[in-house]
């Protein structure tokens, strides 16, 4: 059982991260942002950074840190807001998201932002980066650090994900954790209609992974899943709701990438307040 204080801190942080995501999206104006898949993984990121990983925002290159790779790079807003939560960046910087010359690009890029291990955005590549990172850590005798890779369920359409999954099991990378944000919706609609990967959990298991299916918004379950250490690479299949927290966005594929009018922005903020 996760301790109560951690659960409370993660819950409160999640609420703030959601608000920041809404604000960032609104501030992009007509450009819009990947809001649906950012809102779905808020608790997953909050719990990782606040309740789990070895990470020092003052020393982002600390050798013994855990490595975090956002393979579903389009959820960058959720990551930026989480990094602000842990003090890696200032909260004020968040509204520069997607603005000219901002460090906070539409997808994470290597431009001096602490805590970003790799650029991402081209889907299907992050798990391979995780495999190589784990192999490197093993070579260095670093048995402390774990490597967490966030993937989208739509992203798992990419064949390279499964190349990486096979190799992770082959090389016995038990310090590798894949967290799949199973929100069930990709750009064009339901994942099961676009490319049905079911039985999804079996696939990971058959590729040699230990799997855990959880409610990806339940702080206690998430923290418990992160604490699991075994002999095999770990796939946490986090069942989430795309657009979580805002009624008109929830499970609505139109909010995969969208902009917000002032009215909708205020309505969304109000819904978050009520939920508190």
């Amino acid at each position, binding site marked *: 059982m996760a301790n109560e204080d951690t659960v409370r801190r993660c819950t409160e942080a999640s609420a703030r991260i959601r608000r920041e995501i809404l604000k960032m999206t609104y501030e992009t104006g007509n450009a819009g942002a990947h809001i649906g898949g950012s809102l779905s993984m808020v608790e997953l990121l909050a719990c990782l950074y606040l309740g789990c990983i070895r990470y020092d925002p003052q020393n982002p290159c600390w050798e013994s840190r855990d490595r975090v790779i956002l393979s579903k790079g389009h959820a960058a807003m959720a990551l930026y807001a989480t990094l602000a939560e842990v003090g890696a960046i200032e909260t004020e910087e968040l509204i520069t998201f997607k603005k000219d010359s901002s460090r906070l690009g539409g997808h994470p890029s290597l431009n001096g932002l602490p805590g970003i291990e790799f650029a991402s955005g081209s889907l299907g*590549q992050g798990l*391979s*980066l995780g495999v*190589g990172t784990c192999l490197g850590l093993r070579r260095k005798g670093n048995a402390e650090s774990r490597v967490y890779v966030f993937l989208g369920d739509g992203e798992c359409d990419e*064949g390279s994900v499964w190349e*990486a999954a096979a190799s992770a099991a082959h090389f016995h990378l038990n310090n590798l954790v894949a967290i799949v944000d199973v929100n069930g919706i990709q750009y064009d609609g339901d994942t099961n209609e676009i490319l049905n990967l079911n039985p999804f959990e079996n696939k990971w298991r058959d590729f040699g992974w230990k799997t855990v299916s959880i409610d990806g918004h339940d702080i206690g379950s998430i923290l418990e899943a992160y604490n699991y250490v075994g002999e095999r690479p770990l796939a946490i299949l986090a069942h989430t709701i795309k657009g979580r927290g805002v009624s008109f966005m929830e499970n609505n594929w139109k909010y995969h990438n969208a902009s917000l009018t002032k009215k909708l922005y205020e309505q969304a903020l109000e819904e978050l307040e009520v939920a508190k």
Partner: protein
Amino acid sequence: MIEYTKRNIRKWSLLGPSGAHGIAALELAERNPNVLMLTADLCFFSGLERFKVAYPDRLYNFGIAEQNMIGAAAGLAKEGFIPFANTYASFCTSRCADQVRVNMSYMKLPIKLIGLTAGYAAGILGATHMSVEDIAFMRALPNITIISPADCTEIIKAMLAASETDEPTYIRLTGPQNTPIVYSEDYDFQIGKAVTIQEGEDVCIIATGSMVSHAIQAAKLMENKGVSCTVLNMHTIKPLDMQAIMKASEKHRLLVTAEEHSVIGGLYGAVAEVLCKERQHKPVIPFGISDVFVHSGSYSYQMKESGLTAERIADKVIKHMNKGEI
């Protein structure tokens, strides 16, 4: 410690480009504990059998999964290692173009990519295994050094040199087994600096990879007919030795490029891009693969079909000179 003796150079030539790759891998393993070898089910083919026995924990075989190999190489590079990742040239460039673009080009992770059997060395297996566009692919990507060694000795030198820089690097291996020897003794190899093999006055052949030895023969044939030739080994395609090209244009009446690669986007393209900026420059005749897939067949058949022989180069250049256009 590697020794550039005549005996060794002959041995490397017999082994061919993959064998030389394997020799360099053994040397690198001794020189630098951070060097690792990665392959995609081509351990044996890439000449790494001895490496596998000597350094089993420094060889990673990713199976027939090239995209994953490049991603994993990026992870290893990020953690401070120097991964040399090999597979057929077409598979480690065009097949993995996006992984190469994001990891090597954009993120500048110092992966050393080895393209085996570039050009026609595996052409007998069909168009899928030919690689005559890889330079064009790689040259369009920022931050990647591209080396195209002229013979087995230069393959070894290129790999050793690549291990000593932080640059993402692509080394394309051309030529058949029993690789013609361009360098029969030790010489100075520097990335980005063309080597003048011989100096002449009328024509300068700028050649790369396997075509350097053909260029030397072509120069001899032309000299018999009274045309004096410079032969330049442009082993580094990027960064290109622009000074050497400008100087060649100033000193000669005609320039020739020779590459076992498409005439689009390769050495010819690179040389033309340099010269076009100049108010005055000499004409450049390209020898490379015209914009087609050549029918599969033996190495020599395909080279002949593509006009990549010393005789063809000499004939065409002499005809050009005789027309009085130059």
